[in-house]
């Protein structure tokens, strides 16, 4: 069972330097060839000061930024990552993120809900990440629901 005492508490605070290479790599991995994510000259010609973060760049912030991810899971008593599925993801964009920015993130577990699934009991755990940039401006808020299976489906 997920440790409910951690609900509402900040689990991790971390800082990440947004690097052009990670923007390029994420865009290529999702198959988006738009030059604004690859080529600084093309991004500038399109009016951006540098490469802009693609829509799902928050994933890079949450994993490469929050290097304690799996440690946090263990602290929450989520011991088997392969029993964790991703239920929902929501991004709220508050200001642009560009290569060269330094982003600070805070991770909070906001709730745990238990439901009976087809293959046994499931826990729906919600997490929120709040991100600010080097100027203290809020840039991104994300909300994530993880579905924790208690046992392997037969």
């Amino acid at each position, binding site marked *: 069972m997920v440790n409910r005492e951690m609900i509402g508490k900040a689990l991790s605070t971390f800082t990440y330097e947004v690097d052009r290479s990670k923007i390029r790599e994420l865009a290529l991995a999702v198959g988006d060839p738009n030059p604004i994510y690859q080529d600084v000259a093309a991004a500038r010609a399109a*009016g951006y000061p540098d490469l802009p973060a693609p829509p799902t760049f928050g994933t890079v912030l949450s994993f490469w930024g929050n290097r304690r991810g799996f440690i946090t899971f263990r602290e929450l008593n989520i011991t088997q990552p392969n029993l*964790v599925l991703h239920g929902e*993801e929501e991004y709220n964009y508050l200001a642009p993120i560009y290569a060269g920015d330094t982003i600070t993130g805070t991770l909070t577990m906001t709730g745990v809900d238990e439901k009976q699934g087809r*293959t046994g009991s499931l826990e729906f755990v919600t997490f929120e990440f709040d991100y600010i940039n080097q100027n203290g401006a809020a840039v991104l808020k994300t909300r994530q629901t993880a579905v924790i299976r208690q046992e*392997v489906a037969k």
Partner: protein
Amino acid sequence: MIETQSKLYFEDVQVGDVLPPLTKPPVAHNLFVRYSGASGDFNPLHTDPAVGLAGGTGGVIAHGMLIMGFLGHFVSDYLGGPLPLSRFGVRFQSMTRISDVITCSGTVTKKSEADEPGFGLIEVTIAATDATGDKKASGNFVAKLPKR
């Protein structure tokens, strides 16, 4: 700041508009490995078939965020870049496996005034579906578009 940058204007969008669909190449095991490195999500459920089998998913499955990344490409193409987005959310409904062919689709469901003068909001329902019609993820986005 170029938050106004968009190839789309509010007046160009109508409720009921269907976005140009985007079909991705069949997903491959190699893509899951590549996406793990790009995103930093190294859960072996996505890369190690033995772990996938032990976890009851029948082998490796795609990261949900890879599928949302496909939708992000689709949305970024429609909007002319990422900056008009104000909200983007999906629910993951079924697992994506090797060889699945994902198509992203969307329909404009709402137009409204933005708080900021000179801008309007559009809301678009989106989905990622495989070739058999199985929905992998669905949700919506809200974008702030300039008025002419």
